[in-house]
């Protein structure tokens, strides 16, 4: 299993690098704002800038998550990777689980720098700012993780196709739809439910396609 996960990460390293870079950019700007503030328009508040910048980063980040899922499945189908792996001492279930674990790791990598930035601020100032407390709250971090993973799962289920256009359109569509849904609806249990259901549906669909397909 470990070999399969490593293989998935190595084959999709471009997505891991992209996610890490985006997360580091966001974290750096976040830390900068918290310590040095924003000069200029006094009506612009620090959290407002952070959130708007976060949304700008979140869109390419979710596209990266979705793209990774789609890319894993698309290249598997076109390069017949699973057709090779499934003839070794590996089942389709192993391949699929390793793939999903790699996807989840990608989502975590997208969020770990942000979490680290928050921890750094904590250790520096000794007490949380009100805005940091908001970021740290369960209500924000968990839906953000779920959103990233949901995007990945949609990409995963859409990617098992010979068509290059479909996965790309799905990725873009999701970025456009899911983020505004959260912004409009706000963070809460409804969002948990929607995202968990979306993840479950996508994973079940992707597994069904993968487990019954000719490799």
């Amino acid at each position, binding site marked *: 299993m470990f*070999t*399969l996960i490593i*293989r998935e990460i190595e084959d999709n390293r471009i997505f891991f690098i992209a996610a890490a870079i985006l997360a580091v950019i966001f974290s750096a700007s976040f830390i900068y704002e918290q310590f040095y503030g924003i000069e200029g328009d006094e009506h612009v508040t620090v959290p407002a800038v952070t959130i708007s910048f976060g949304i700008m980063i979140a869109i390419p980040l979710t596209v990266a998550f979705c793209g990774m899922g789609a890319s894993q499945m698309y290249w598997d189908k076109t*390069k*017949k*990777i699973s*057709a*090779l*792996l*499934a*003839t*070794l*001492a*590996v*089942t389709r279930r*192993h391949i699929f689980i390793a793939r999903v674990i790699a996807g989840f790791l990608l989502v975590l990598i997208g969020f770990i720098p942000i979490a680290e930035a928050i921890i750094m601020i904590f250790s520096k100032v000794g007490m949380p700012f009100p805005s940091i407390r908001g970021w740290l709250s369960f209500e924000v971090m968990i839906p953000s993780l779920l959103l990233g993973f949901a995007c990945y799962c949609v990409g995963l289920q859409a990617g098992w196709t010979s068509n290059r256009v479909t996965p790309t359109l799905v990725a873009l569509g999701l970025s456009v739809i899911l983020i505004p849904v959260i912004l409009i609806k706000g963070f809460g249990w409804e969002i948990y439910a929607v995202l968990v259901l979306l993840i479950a549906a996508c994973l079940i669909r992707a597994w069904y396609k993968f487990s*019954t397909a*000719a*490799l």
Partner: protein
Amino acid sequence: MSEYAIQTENIVKYFDGRCVLDGINLKVPQGGIYGLLGRNGAGKTTIIRILLGLEPATRGGAIVLGASSWQLPVSVLGQIGYVAEGHNLIPNYSVHRIADLYRNLSAKWNEQFFRRLIETFRLPMERKVSQLSRGMKAQLNLSLAMATEPKLLILDDPTLGLDTVARRQFLELAVELISQDGRTILFSSHILSDVERLADRIGILRAGKLVVDCEMEELKKRARKLRLIFDDQPPRELPITDIIAEKRQGRELILTVANWNETKQTFLNVFKPASCTEIPMTLEEIFIECTASGTDAAVDYEQGEPICSH
């Protein structure tokens, strides 16, 4: 453990409404080399893919090393080596990386044997698979499959793309592998001389049906090609079953018959041919007779059982 490494039960496979395999009952005994022959599109690769669980059968199923082929457990997969037609290796991986993948994901791995094969074939470890020639890909695929020390080795046209020397090396390797107790090889090939040299049992597919399934020697013994010369015109119909092919020219009748036995000889003698001589047949000739289409006899034959099935 069953006496058969592979046993299929009435496998039927349709692709887009077209029947590709029609009721295949194949039995590959443990510890032998089984040669699967057939023309392009006869269904050889499809059978192999179904056996490996890469392709679902429309109906029927297969038991491979005691497990259902569609859901082979890791313990069984670890005992199977496979060389795919076209050498299905991940193109952007280096030889080294592919070898690492096999090493880490195989149940067994014989590094010494693998190194020996790599040196024999002179394969560059750092080169990408996509940069290898077709022959080198074949050699790499064979090396990888053999290094896993499989109990069952499935080879789908493995010598395709190999030069004469490499083909000979492969045959020697296959013999070396099979000389170890209990190893079984199923291989399909277009090169009949390889099959004739290597296989001890043979199956011939024709238009999705298994028309021959028996031991090589048995096949050669039971498939007869006879040149019959009559005093007058040859009889229009002969009361003999399993006629694979017949060719008439004047007083001469050339007849290819499967499952030849004394009863058929007796029936033939009733027509009192002036002379009856046997034309020796190579595997290639038997194959051509069995798979050539167009004759009525061949069409009739398609409805029947395999010409020898034991």
